[in-house]
């Protein structure tokens, strides 16, 4: 059985699995796309954003307390 046939039989043939495929697929794509674009954004703006600044502030605050 070819890959396309397997896909058709397991996911697309019955309406219940087809709808479930769309819902789960949408969710997975949304998460995946967000992770991907966020990593591009963070890579492009490395060293400029708040999380990095926060780490710097906290590290400095700890060394001041000592």
């Amino acid at each position, binding site marked *: 059985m070819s890959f396309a046939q397997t896909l058709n039989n397991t996911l697309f043939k019955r309406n219940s699995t087809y709808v479930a495929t769309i819902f789960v697929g949408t969710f997975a794509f949304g998460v995946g*796309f*967000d992770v991907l*674009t*966020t990593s*591009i*954004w963070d890579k*492009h*703006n490395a*060293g*400029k*954003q*708040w999380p*990095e*600044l*926060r780490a*710097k*502030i*906290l590290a*400095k605050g700890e060394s001041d307390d000592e």
Partner: protein
Amino acid sequence: MFSIFNRAASAQMKAFSRKASTQAGSASNISNKGAAIAASISGLSAALYSYQFGVFDEAFASGLEEGLHAPHFPWSHNGYLDSFDHNSIRRGYQVYREVCSSCHSLDRIAWRNLVAVSHTSDEARAMAEEVEYTDGPNDQGESFQRPGKLADYMPAPYPNEEASRAANGGALPPDLSLMVKARHGGADYIMALLTGYQDPPAGISVAEGMNFNPYFPGGQIAMGRVLFDGLVEYDDGTPATTTQMAKDVSTFLSWASEPEHDDRKKMGMQAVIVLSAMTAISLYVKRLKWSPIKTRKLVYNPPK
């Protein structure tokens, strides 16, 4: 101003008629008409120019009335995918707090806005608590003083416009919350203005209590130069030169007038990716569905 155009038009007309005199009479009629059309066009464009840009007057030709155009500075947030430099925002807030805030308010920014942008929530809360706010009414119906909290807005240096003018020789230091959006040139203008103070050139007299700054419209500004090397001490060790402080406070004010900037650019990138993919898919589907129609062949066999 019109005289220039009229002179040009009449010169054109002369050229036309001189050419016409060497030719037959009917041609002269046509070229006179052409000259009249040319004259009316130039008169019209002159009228349009003065309507759009004002009448040109040589008394206003020094270039200072509009202020010099600020150069384009290479801001770290210039590009389509560039976020603000939050280190710079933090330093800029320090400059605003220690220098600018003695005259300029920032009344659209609350302490909570600094959290997770330039300060931790503990830092912002501690800074807010240093300021006394009037609250009320209490059980007796009276106002009372309390230390600030994160939801409070930045305190203004003066209670009202009159007090502000009285303390500054009649000049009103504007609120800085939206200043980057409110001025032509934005952050470039603020940067150029803060670093642009200089002695007035020969021939330009500056009024009492005013300072010369070529980037300020009119060339004379009531605010004096305030940024000098080493005025503040940055806690991240950056040398506090005049230009560094001007750059940082301009970045801070850019953030203050556009706090959504980083999210906007990131979401813009995501939207462009998704929408261009959808456009490509819809073009492909259109071609797919139309291909049988586009490629079919109709054959007409005429009856014999």
